[in-house]
């Protein structure tokens, strides 16, 4: 990359597919079909789509937990080679370590950074001191995420779902990652808690301005928290009207209102029109738009160039997924 690359994350022709049988003779099952996506630093990107379309797969690709069968995932111009500190993640469940207290969970990343393996193994006085300081720091952080300092010594099992997710977010943010990946983080929470958590994550975003990729089922949530809404869907057809294989980005829209938005915006007509639009485009199985009809109005949106089923099944060099 010689010219300055404005995009922090770039999905270039990303395909994720699996052989249908072990031998690959009967073709491949396609999850993501030649997905192209550019994301700038500091964006709050909401990713929506029907169940099982591949939203979590995209997240895992950016995380480095999964690799595309074709194409590239670039972060800062470099291909993603594995999971590391640059990217933080908050899952819907299993986010915390059950055998550690809240402060130990939150301080885990920083403590790893500040101490070395021999120090930890030998339990040196230096390690003990750094640990004490890190735990104290974590305890102070609790207030910022809406917990009490004395909650710090509890184990995850003693916390409600909402409190656990707060701790999980804090645990990820302590590492000050450039990119925060959130996979339906509030899906298991009740409505009111979810609203509070949306405000929490917007607060944190305001403070840190990291890039957030936020996968959710909840359209209203997606359009409210995000600066940009992307709809990934397998309900589309190609230029000739044949049903498409795999999922592509069918919708790429900026969201109205300033950032972060006032909560009152949820009641406005403009907001609800956006919701309906995205719902119709991405989530409605009966609506299989043709490629030209996709609403790709965001400034960074790319026109998709999905492959046909035959092209996907073409023999590839290298190992199968």
């Amino acid at each position: 990359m010689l010219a300055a690359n404005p995009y922090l994350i770039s999905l270039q022709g990303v395909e994720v597919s699996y052989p249908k049988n072990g031998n690959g003779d009967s073709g491949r099952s396609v999850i993501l079909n030649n997905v192209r996506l550019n994301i700038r630093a500091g964006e709050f990107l909401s990713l929506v789509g029907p169940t099982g379309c591949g939203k979590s797969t995209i997240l895992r690709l950016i995380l480095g937990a999964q690799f595309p069968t074709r194409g590239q995932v670039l972060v800062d111009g470099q291909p993603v080679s594995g999971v590391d500190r640059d990217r933080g993640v908050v899952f819907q469940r299993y986010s915390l370590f059950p055998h550690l207290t809240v402060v130990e969970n939150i301080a885990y990343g920083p403590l790893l950074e500040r101490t070395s393996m021999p120090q930890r193994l030998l339990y040196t006085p230096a390690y003990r001191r750094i640990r004490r300081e890190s735990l104290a720091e974590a305890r102070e952080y609790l207030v910022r995420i809406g917990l009490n300092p004395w909650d710090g010594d509890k184990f995850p099992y003693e916390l409600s779902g909402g409190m656990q997710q707060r701790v999980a977010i804090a645990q990820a943010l302590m590492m000050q990652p450039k990119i925060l990946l959130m996979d339906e983080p509030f899906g298991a929470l009740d409505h009111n808690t979810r609203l509070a958590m949306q405000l929490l994550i917007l607060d944190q975003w305001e403070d840190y301005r990291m890039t957030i990729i936020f996968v959710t089922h909840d359209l209203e949530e997606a359009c409210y928290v995000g600066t940009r809404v992307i709809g990934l869907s397998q309900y589309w057809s190609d230029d000739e009207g044949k049903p498409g294989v795999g999922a592509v980005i069918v919708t790429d829209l900026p969201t109205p209102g300033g950032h972060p938005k006032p909560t009152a915006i949820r009641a406005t007509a403009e907001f609800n029109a956006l919701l309906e639009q995205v719902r119709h485009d991405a989530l409605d199985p009966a609506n299989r738009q043709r490629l030209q009809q996709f609403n790709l109005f965001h400034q960074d949106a790319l026109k998709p160039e999905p492959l046909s089923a035959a092209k996907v099944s073409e023999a590839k060099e290298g190992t199968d997924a």
Partner: protein
Amino acid sequence: MRSFFRTDAQPSGVATWLLSILLFGLLIGAYLAGSYYRHQENPQDKVMPTVSEMLDGLKRAAFEPDRNGDLRLWIDTLASARRFGIAIGVVLLAIPLGVGMGLFPYVEAVFYRFIVFFDKIPALSVLPILFIIFGLDELSKIALIVIGVFPTVALEAHLRAKSIPREQIHKAQTLGASEPEIAYRIVMPQIFPKMLETIRLNLKAAMLLLIAGESLAATVGLGYRIFVVRRYVAMDIIIPYVLWMTGLLFLTDWFIQWVIRRRYVWVDK
């Protein structure tokens, strides 16, 4: 009778206690009756000693030095405990091995089938081989327990490590944890209380193998003693020894349960 088989029955504390000792009472009662009648016919009967005879035998073993000046009960207990303790210590190594197998596919490839093979070998059948290779003293007896219990613990740790959700592992990686760090500071501490449970459940098998080894080739030990005095039909030693061993197993079992409850409050919640 119908109320006996109600699933929603709630027996009172007293009733439960009484019913619990019912079968014990029957067994002890039958024994005492049998012992009494045998002693009526033959006061020297050794097959079913009376309670006072058994207490006597226990006192002798515990407090009266034998030919070599040792107190039998305690040196036997000590010898057996030593073998048992060393074996369990070695078995604990199965936990990090199992975790390694569960998390690292290369490690699994090397060890898995090998351990499964040893898991299927009936441990006792290996004993003659152990005696031939290692002789008749401590090593073969400890090795027997290890061969019997190590594979079970390793395979259990392997399964549990595999079933740690991938999300946790990825989370740890985003926090900067290296692979060994993940294995031994995140996965292993989580499954350790479950491994303690597994070891607790395998105490019985370990004890079995210990007694088998001792019964065949030893000069001291709880298993050795009960088999050696069999020739003299010394039931007044054997029965107290059996009860003593059962009691020790109970204590160890309770101790492990207590440790898990106290130190690992978070498990299974």
